[in-house]
């Protein structure tokens, strides 16, 4: 199974993730797309480690998953705080950063 397949699969996933981040209005979807992107990265790590026959890739996946978990936890905490504050989590409403 040539490695390009795995990488292209990861690319597709990553692409979906990016599009999700860019075009979804709802913050929750953005977070989910980010998870998707992280998984694409994981896939690359694992297939890389299998191909190079060294296990560092897999260990990196652990760390990536941990980081993803922490990120999701804090992200969703913020979503809740935002929701409580604004009553909605549609991104149009967060205009504070206006230039």
């Amino acid at each position, binding site marked *: *199974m040539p490695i390009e397949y795995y990488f*292209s699969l990861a690319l597709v996933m990553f692409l*979906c*993730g990016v599009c999700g981040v860019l075009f979804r209005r709802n913050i929750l979807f953005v977070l*989910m797309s980010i998870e*998707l992107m992280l998984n694409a990265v994981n896939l690359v790590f*694992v297939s890389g480690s299998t191909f190079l026959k060294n296990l560092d890739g897999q260990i990196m996946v652990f760390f990536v998953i941990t980081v993803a*978990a922490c990120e999701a936890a804090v992200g*969703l905490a913020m979503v809740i705080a935002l929701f409580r504050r604004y009553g909605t*989590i549609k991104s149009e409403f967060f205009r504070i950063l206006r230039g």
Partner: protein
Amino acid sequence: MSDQLVFWGLAGFITLSSVAVVTVRNPVTAAVALVINLFLLAGVYAFQGADFVAAIQIIVYTGAIVVLFLFVIMILNLDPEHLRSPRPRIWEHLVLGVVIAGFAYIGYRFLDSLDVGKVASNRLPDNTYDVAMILFSNYLWPFEIVSILILLAIVGSVAIAKKPK
């Protein structure tokens, strides 16, 4: 031969579900699509021989993180209509096209620069033991830092989500 079959099946479903995650209206559907996507991804890992990683993927990712997403969706109890996102404007399509084209090009250039041979579907023997050994020797410091990271996440999320008294 069966390898090809399995891989292509998994790959197909994964692409399908990841597209679903992005396009679907209802957040719960998106969450379920994500679950399926991750589950199948765990399948791919197992297929490649990274058993422990697959297990972790399912336990932590599917079993915990997406559950959290589900919880948040349920807690926020968003009314579906509220989530109807407005008709995407033209420039969004344009940008979408550009982004896809860009990534495709980058991917293509990267892939064809890879001069790797065929990856033998060499399922590694049960490597959990080796993974553990490496983790606890070479990657000692990241391991400790991970614990600190988790501590930070705990304190952070609790502080943010707690109802202000």
